[in-house]
């Protein structure tokens, strides 16, 4: 089978996708004990009797984690339950030291929300309903060491008890591309809210996807037929949004092939779980956990129900700040930039937007500031890595360079060179301008330069005189050679003026 089945331009089916996203909340401590949630510490160094599940240990809820989860749910337009409780999800696994996970079953703290995603290039726009958002504790990590045939498994419980928010969408997505776009939007939102760092490499964000195909079948004699639905497959083990997209593309094609061969419809076989094999580019069937069908949920007797007052909801709402959708529209409106530009900026996070707004304020022109952000600042930032807070050039410095370009001291490409030099040397804009010999060319010098050019190029002068203004371009190249600081626009205008003035 090919690694990446091609998607037909118009498939004879609709791909129906629902997502289950787990995000780790950005708390200092775990959900039910005081242990640190820091990533990357030596195994089993951030543990206590509670997260080790030792006899007699008890959980106590971390209210900050709960408040963060409420903030996320509000931003996802969910209803917040005034009363919610905890449940135990019972199953045996070595990375689950209590033999149950504290989760939420029939009364999640929030439900019935939605998150819209609009592709800035207009490829799609989709409002995805969210069934529920609930809070639960993470399990530990099993590290299987199959070396030397010992099949040794080591358990790290540092992660056990870390607060996780589970977000379950309706199957409202209609393409792998939409799924990826929606995940990007969800991640951006959660990062904006300060709810999670959504770092997939560190496991802060995990995605499972449910996918099947809806296939319209033709009816008798041209009448409308029915829709056949293929069995739902849950895909696991996708560790990037790109993997999610690829896995869904693969799985849709695989289901289509299977449908054509078997005509098996949903309900005729149990829901299947398949794992994404990224290097191979395929999904493979996964063995079901023995007890997965019956978790014997029941109310967690060690914890009391949680109540959420209207005042608490108001506080959480106030702490939210503008979500990305609102911010995009506001930026486009305020700085007269395109929706696309606003999208690029907002997608870089709240700090970069603040940096941009500072630059735009100094420059006084949103569009120019946006161009510089995208072509210079962002490009360099992407090459260098790091965050805007760590960026060595300040918005004040960039505004200084743009200001000089606007004044006509030099052109944009010269400005770029200055930006690169400021970035590399750490010097001030003024120093760089001085050391690079980029002095503003005085009007007298400009006149002298242009007269010299006209004298040396009678053919061009004659052409221009004859009405071919574009011939002046030849002068500009020569001017650059004679004086690199000469502003090409000014040179052109001056030469035209001088030629016109000739008898």
């Amino acid at each position, binding site marked *: 089978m090919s690694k990446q089945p091609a998607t037909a331009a118009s498939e004879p089916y609709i791909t129906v996708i629902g997502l289950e996203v787990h995000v780790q909340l950005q708390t200092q401590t775990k959900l039910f004990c005081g242990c640190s949630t820091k990533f990357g510490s030596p195994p089993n160094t951030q543990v206590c*009797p509670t997260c*080790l*599940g*030792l*006899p*007699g*240990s*008890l*959980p*106590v*809820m971390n209210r900050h984690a709960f408040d963060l989860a409420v903030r996320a749910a509000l931003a996802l337009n969910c209803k917040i339950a005034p009363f919610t409780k905890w449940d*135990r999800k*019972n199953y*045996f696994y*070595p990375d689950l*030291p*209590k*033999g*149950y996970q504290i989760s939420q079953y029939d009364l999640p703290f929030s439900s019935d929300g939605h998150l819209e995603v609009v592709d800035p290039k207009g490829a799609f726009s989709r409002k995805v309903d969210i069934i529920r958002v609930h809070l639960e504790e993470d399990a530990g990590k099993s590290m299987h060491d199959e070396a030397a045939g010992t099949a040794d498994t080591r*358990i790290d419980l540092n992660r056990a008890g870390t607060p996780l928010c589970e977000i379950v969408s309706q199957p409202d997505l209609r393409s792998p591309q939409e799924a990826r776009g929606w995940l990007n939007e969800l991640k951006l939102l959660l990062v904006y809210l300060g709810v999670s760092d959504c770092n997939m490499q560190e496991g802060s964000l995990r995605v499972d996807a449910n996918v099947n195909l809806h296939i319209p079948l033709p009816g008798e004699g041209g009448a409308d037929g029915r829709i056949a639905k293929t069995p739902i497959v849950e895909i696991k083990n996708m560790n990037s949004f790109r993997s999610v997209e690829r896995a869904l593309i693969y799985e849709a094609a695989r289901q289509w092939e299977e449908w054509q061969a078997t005509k098996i419809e949903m309900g005729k076989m149990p829901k299947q779980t398949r794992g994404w094999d990224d290097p191979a580019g395929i999904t493979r069937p996964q063995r079901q956990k*023995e007890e997965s*069908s*019956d978790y*014997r*949920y*029941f109310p967690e*007797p*060690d*914890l*009391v129900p949680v109540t959420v007052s209207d005042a608490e909801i108001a506080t959480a709402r106030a702490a939210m700040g503008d979500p990305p959708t609102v911010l995009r529209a506001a930026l486009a409106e305020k700085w007269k930039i395109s929706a696309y530009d606003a999208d690029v900026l907002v997608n870089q996070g709240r700090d970069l937007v603040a940096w941009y707004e500072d630059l735009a304020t100094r420059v006084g022109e949103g569009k120019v500031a946006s161009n510089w952000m995208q072509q210079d600042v962002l490009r360099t930032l992407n090459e260098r890595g790091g965050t805007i807070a760590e960026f060595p050039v300040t918005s004040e410095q960039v505004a200084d360079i743009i200001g000089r370009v606007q004044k006509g001291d030099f052109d944009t490409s010269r400005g770029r060179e200055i930006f690169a030099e400021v970035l590399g040397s750490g010097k001030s804009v003024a120093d760089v301008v001085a050391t690079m010999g980029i002095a503003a060319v005085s009007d007298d010098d400009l006149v002298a330069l242009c007269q010299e050019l006209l004298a040396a190029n009678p053919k061009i002068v004659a052409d221009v005189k004859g009405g071919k203004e574009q011939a002046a371009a030849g002068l500009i190249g020569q001017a650059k050679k004679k004086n690199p600081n000469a502003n090409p626009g000014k040179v052109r205008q001056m030469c035209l003026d001088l030629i016109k003035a000739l008898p």
Partner: protein
Amino acid sequence: MQPLELSAVDLVTAIRRGEASAVQVAEAFLGRIEKANGSINAFLHIDREAALARAADIDARRKAGKPLGALAGLPVAVKDALCTSDQPTTCASKMLAGFRPPYDAHVVAKLRQADAVLVGKTNMDEFAMGGSNENSAFGAVHNPWDLTRAPGGSSGGSAACVAADMAPAAIGSDTGGSIRQPAGLCGITGLKPTYGRVSRRGLVAFASSLDQIGPMTRSAADCALLMETIAGHDPGDATCLTDEVPRYTEMLEKPLTGLRIGRVAEHFGPGLDPEVAHGVEEAFAAFKAAGATIHDVELPHAKYGIATYYLVAPCEASSNLARYDGAHYGHRAEPGRGHRTSAGPTGEFESPLVEMYCRSRAEGFGPEVKRRIMLGTYALSAGYYDAFYAKALRVRRLIRQDYLDAFAQVDLIGGPVSPTPAFPLGEKTSDPLAMYLVDMYTVGTNLAGIGGISFPCGFTKGGLPIGFQLQGPALSEPLLLRAADRYQKLTDWHTRRPKLAT
């Protein structure tokens, strides 16, 4: 002065006044343990060296004029279900044989802060599941009044050690009667506080919504003394109450004039031993003589108590005990010996991991624990949850409402603790249902989350103690303790001691 004969209150007073040293007191009780434990088996661990060192430290601090805790020098025995950082905590299970917790239970820490001298860990029914103490992996406890009989359970070791003068006070835990019933069968006083009055942190969980730690002593006054130390809010237990702890010891004196005690006719129905019934009626008469009035009250759903309890408790237990799987601590079966004792329907284990789980649990748990895990697992399973667990929760609410209704008419409810006096060891071990009925008068207290106290109210002709139980509304401990204390000021049943051939 003979320390073994003094009450906890008197011992603490004597030590504070310097009339006895803590070491002297500790030595007296440790000596008694040495003599008597062989025949009674009340202790699973005895920490003689640590106890004596602790006592010596208290004496030194007293001599230096340094402040001492409220229980300074008082020997206290602790049920082996409470975590102790310096002694093993086994819950009388092979599963936890030799297990040493890295932390102290909240109550143990409070006892240490109060300068109590912890003498050892007491025997119990495995994971507190049982009413006779025969479900211990380390041997049954023998009732000091008759060594051929059971001391009750599950806090049988705690009850027996107090009854046999091996400790003036002990800590027990009560999930369905596990403090009150053995106290009744051993002729001592035991208090099951309101749910949440005492922190459960560090108490190895049996049924989280029912478990409660309480004192087991010779008298209500001694229970009041211990309660002042162990009760109170613990931010480490989300179900712990924040209400201020009253000065129980200072609230005992008020006479019982006008106290309304309820009497439930169903408590005197089939199954109640006539001698027990007689003793209980005598106690009602004594309360009446002391100024209380006796009123008939109804607990219409009490008859469903045992059925409800034996769903709620095993369901919670099946989850609470899931952690004992051999993976992280406790008993783990040796790999690959090939005797497949509990293979699945196919006769094969699904994986080496599943085999390890199955065999570790098969080997580590005793039959009663397995029975309850299976009952609870079954009742929580898909398709059975509503019929069993959810229904049991609804009945539990009705039982709680019964008590609320009754306490609108009376201050306390009196009656027997258990249907019979101490029964012979082995009598009920082959009949789990008969064993479950020993809790018939006590489980309602736990299901309702209220308080109850048990104390001796007479003896059978054969010389076995008869227990009387008072139940009171939530946070009625001051009244429960006062009523029992007033009764004990008028009677001497609680002062009687078994004659032990040692």
